[in-house]
């Protein structure tokens, strides 16, 4: 059985501070990490591998620094890694990356299952999974928490409303895994060494994928960033317990804290 997991990379939030007052992000340490939700996806794939025979392949598209993310994924347990990168791919947007990944996955071929993190932490982008499923023409389940396989049938527990649903899906299929669905394993010490010293990441460029700069032209335009209002401390609510309670609950709801 062949499982493919796309991997994305984000700026490590531990390395920057957001200043609403300056409407700026101060980067203290520019480090990139695997999108945490993609680690949840990889964990689902690796636990399927633990439970039976499976080959887990990771793939990433965009900037060359994704090489580190792929090696980390191999250190966690992936068997092979593909990096789609060149000058054109490095400049495209999430839609272009999706296009490249779809072609890369087709080029790898013969897959039974694709497991994707539902969204990215940095831009809340939740497009990739279902978009790929449509491109590849496979069945799809979202909000996945757990998966197991027996007799070629995939059994999945997915989020559903305030509860969950158990569903069955025939292969080939694509799962998008809910963020926080599991606790991803740590990369293994020995595999970390091997990932950099022994194992290869296979690299394909846009030409290998049959893509041109025009195919990958961004479909969106960045319009900068918006910042929440600066935090003010020390506000007091006054009135009867009922009044202050009502006011508090309203404030919490308005701020979407509850």
């Amino acid at each position, binding site marked *: 059985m062949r499982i493919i997991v796309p991997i994305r990379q984000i700026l490590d939030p531990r390395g920057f501070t957001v200043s609403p007052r300056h409407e700026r992000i101060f980067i203290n340490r520019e480090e990139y990490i695997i999108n945490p939700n993609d680690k949840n996806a990889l964990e689902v794939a690796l636990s399927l591998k633990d439970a039976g025979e499976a080959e887990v392949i990771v793939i990433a598209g965009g900037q060359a620094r994704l090489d580190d993310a792929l090696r*980390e994924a191999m250190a966690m347990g992936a068997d092979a890694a593909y990096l789609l990168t060149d000058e054109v791919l490095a400049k495209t947007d999430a839609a272009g990356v999706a296009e490249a990944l779809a072609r890369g996955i087709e080029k790898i071929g013969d897959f039974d299952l694709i497991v994707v993190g539902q969204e990215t932490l940095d831009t809340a982008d939740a497009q990739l999974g279902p978009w790929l499923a449509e491109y590849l023409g496979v069945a799809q389940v979202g909000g996945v928490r757990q998966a197991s396989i027996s007799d070629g049938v995939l059994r999945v527990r997915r989020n559903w409303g305030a509860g969950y649903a158990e569903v069955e899906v025939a292969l080939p299929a694509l799962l998008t895994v809910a963020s926080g669905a599991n606790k991803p394993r740590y990369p*293994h010490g*020995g595999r*970390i*060494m*091997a*990932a*950099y010293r022994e194992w290869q990441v296979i690299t394909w460029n846009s030409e290998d994928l049959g893509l041109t700069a025009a195919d990958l032209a961004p479909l969106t335009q960045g319009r900068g960033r918006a910042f929440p209002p600066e935090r003010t401390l020390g506000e007091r609510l006054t009135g009867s317990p009922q009044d202050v309670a009502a006011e508090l609950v309203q404030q919490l709801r308005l701020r979407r804290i509850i």
Partner: protein
Amino acid sequence: MDFTFPKEYELFRRMVREFAENEVRPLAKKVDAEHRVPFETIKKAAKLGLMGVPFPRKYGGSGAGETGYCILMEELGKVCTSTATVIGAHTGIGAMAIYLDGTEEQKEKYLKPLASGEKIAAFALTEAQAGSDAAAIKTRAVRDGDYYVLNGSKCFITNGDIADIITVMAVTDPSLGARGGVTAFIVEKGFPGFSIGTLENKMGIRGSSTAELIFEDCRVPKENVLGQFGAGFITFMKTLDIGRASLAAACLGGAQAAMEGAMRWAAVRSQFGVPIAQKQSVHFAIADMATEIEALRSLVYRTAWLIDTGQPHVKEAAMCKVYGSEVASRCINRALQIFGGMGYSREFWVERAFRDARIAEIFEGTSEIQRIVIASNLFREMGLRISP
């Protein structure tokens, strides 16, 4: 010359740091209070290859060399010296002796399960009358057919009671003394005649156990002679030399954590209307800590590099040990002072760090012994004869 860590080490550090934060830190206070070994952590560490970091992958280790091993010790040293000690005695001396001098068969049989963390190791040299003067050990090994019969006892053995496999130094020929008369043996805990005596009730590193080991006609098969017969002294000297660098790495982590903690506290603690961080005495303390820590870091990782590249490192490892243990004690002491009364409370980790740090100046060769090693190596390097 390139002082940056290759990428595999950066990722390795990130992994062990997260492991230390998420898995080790939550238990640190508890294992100290309950005076018990964090077995749950050991199990998790084993799964990640962290019980055999320096050993080659073919023996089930991580293949990360001394450099990787020092990274592990540094990150563990930041959150829990006890855990660093348990893993250190297992990897850095117990299993290390087998790695350095074991035969292929011995490595297959003993190093593999140790490197994978399936089994735990200890290293037994010290005896009641033989501490710094290790050559004075009395435990006797006498040949009896295919066996050696061991009699005697060891004290202060880290992991002694939890170890499955123990490297033991014993006298095989009293007439020859240390050079030629001492042999190293691999002892399994199930060998007849082996038992555990008292456990020490210690000041610090209370999440590690320290045991007395008793050998009463303990029968050890002759294949379990480790290294050359009669060359046990060389085996344990080589082993301890390497252990010293990583021990200093744990000290480095402890010192760094103390400094950072003190800085955070100084920034929020106000007295006389201003944060104490504004006081020059606090600045000076921090500057001194940071400088010593940086010097220690360079020393530790340069020594690790010497070891990994197969160069002489005895003097440097001893420097690591003496400087590292003293920097850690000094920095934690200064940090404790910045914390004031808070630092003296059992509630808070600084007090534990202070107790834990002290051992580093004693075990694996006291600071005095390290200075002797350093100086005598220096005289030799300069070609100066100081004994008639």
